């Protein structure tokens, strides 16, 4: 391909076209950041750095600070990871090592199908099925037994930070477990057999061979789930409660960046309001870019290592 002499013009055209389309894909990414930044200038100019430190979000007085949506996004994501990571590790381990062979493919498909269900269906299910269950049974129980903790204080309404995190948990489990299973499967068989040969139990092989071997890839899998959770919109918007106040209680309604955008973007009147929302979108995009970028790097490194 490098030899340009005697090259048919069709080849030059073909390579040029495909290169153009590939470059356009990168161009779209750059355009996305530039447009968001350009359109959020009124807000950046007005609030400067205080946009990221102020807890006030008031469309009437046109004072906008992003702390509450950002904190809501991070809190719901971290809680979801807290629930999802151990569960996903268990599922991945079961799929890669423990399940009988005839069961692996169908079970893996079933878990992956959880990822295919549209997020709005999760959100709706969360609102109509999970939230009442939380309000009537789970939250009163938590309050009765652990009510002395500030996390479980306040009225048990069902919708709120905890329910949103649980719905997010369900949504990211398939992503984390599918990638982790693939990482587990890439651990070379001789390594595992050597450990078994020394008399290790399955758990010891997992803990001392498979986890250390795949730790980069597993970190990547977790960050992949984190990136999904950070930007998830519909599932969260239904159940997070959409309220602007900070609270220690996980029962309290909150807000995330994505749910703020979903609820307010079309209603935003006034340049400053709209540009503040756009800046919020830019912040979300940059956070997920960093998280997903790390995830990609680690997952890829985990996979190339496995192939050697």
């Amino acid at each position, binding site marked *: 391909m490098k030899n340009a002499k005697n090259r048919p013009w069709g080849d030059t055209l073909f390579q040029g076209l495909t290169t153009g389309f*590939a470059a356009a894909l990168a161009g779209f990414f750059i355009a996305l950041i530039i447009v968001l930044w350009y359109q959020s200038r009124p807000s950046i100019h007005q609030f400067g750095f205080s946009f990221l430190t102020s807890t006030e979000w008031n469309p009437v007085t046109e004072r906008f600070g992003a702390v509450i949506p950002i904190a809501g996004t991070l809190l719901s994501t971290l809680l979801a990871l807290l629930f999802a990571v151990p569960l996903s590790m268990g599922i991945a381990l079961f799929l890669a090592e423990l*399940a009988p062979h005839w069961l692996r493919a169908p079970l893996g498909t079933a878990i*992956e199908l959880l990822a295919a269900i549209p997020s709005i*269906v999760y959100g709706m*299910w969360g609102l109509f099925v999970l939230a009442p269950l939380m309000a009537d049974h789970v939250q009163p129980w938590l309050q009765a037994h652990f009510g002395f903790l500030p996390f479980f204080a306040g009225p048990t309404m069902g919708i709120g930070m905890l329910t949103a995190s649980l719905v997010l948990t369900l949504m990211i489990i398939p992503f984390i477990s599918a990638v982790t299973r693939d990482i587990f499967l890439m651990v070379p068989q001789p390594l595992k057999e050597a450990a078994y040969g020394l008399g290790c139990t*399955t758990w*010891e092989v997992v803990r001392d061979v498979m986890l250390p071997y795949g730790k980069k890839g597993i970190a990547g899998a977790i960050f992949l789930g984190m*990136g999904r959770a950070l930007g998830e919109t519909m599932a969260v918007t239904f159940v997070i409660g959409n309220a602007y106040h900070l609270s220690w209680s996980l029962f309290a309604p909150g807000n995330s960046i994505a749910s703020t955008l979903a609820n307010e973007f079309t209603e935003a009147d006034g340049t400053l309001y709209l540009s503040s929302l756009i800046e919020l979108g830019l912040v979300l995009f940059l956070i997920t870019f960093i998280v997903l970028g790390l995830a990609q790097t680690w997952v890829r490194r985990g996979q190339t290592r496995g192939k050697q």
Partner: protein
Amino acid sequence: MLLVQRRQFANAVVLSLSGLAALAGLFMLAWILGDVALKGAAAINWRFFTELPAPPGMAGGGLANAMVGTLLMTMAAALIAVPFGVMSGTYLAEFGQTNPLGHVVRFLADVLVSAPSIVIGVFVYLVMVKPMGHFSGWAGACSLALIMLPVISRTTEEMLKLVPPEMREAALALGAPYWKMMTGIIYRAAATGILTGVMLAVARVAGETAPLLFTALNSPYWMEGMNEPMANLTVALFNYAMSPYDDWHTLAWGAALLITMVVLAVNVFTRLILHAKRRLW
């Protein structure tokens, strides 16, 4: 307790927990699908597929316009995204395996696959809806196309790489130019794989809501064209589920059942095709 017993005990605990986690995942899948099927079935009847939404408080009504809207926008999105995605995917597989542009595009495509779709909605709002002055089906289709693009691009790359090198060598040895080898042989060999990738991308955007909120919006009427706010299943589902009316909740469950069934059917179907194809090779 002996050390051996302790180790075996720890092993048994972890293994049972792992099995329980898998069971819990299956249980959640069954629970959600069961709820959607039970509650959605109540909404599925002839009127659901043929009538316009009824005003609040009135019984009956359907989501016919939203189904057509979703179908039209998804198809338009596929028409935009498929050539774009296949071409950029071809670059990644054929010309950009190791060079800087290839690395950058591959990385950005991977990030965009999981990027928040609502931000893409905001972007399309700013570059299409705001300059045009109104919401439109085209804007909705474009935002869906932007979500499909990186998915199609990366699957095309993977599928092209799966084509056995002997096929390339045979074509080139016969003196075929590179572009003819690609269009005449390699694309045909990879067609099933690329098509399944496209179908998975279509299934994914068919259930997308967030990017449509600010682009296609929604509409209770029949559309006269793509250049106006356009009814679609997911935003209708969102509006109806958030409404205080029971009739509308039922319609929302019906929409949820319809979307979920279509998306899952496409997913299962494409997996079967891919599975059969892998076996052939």
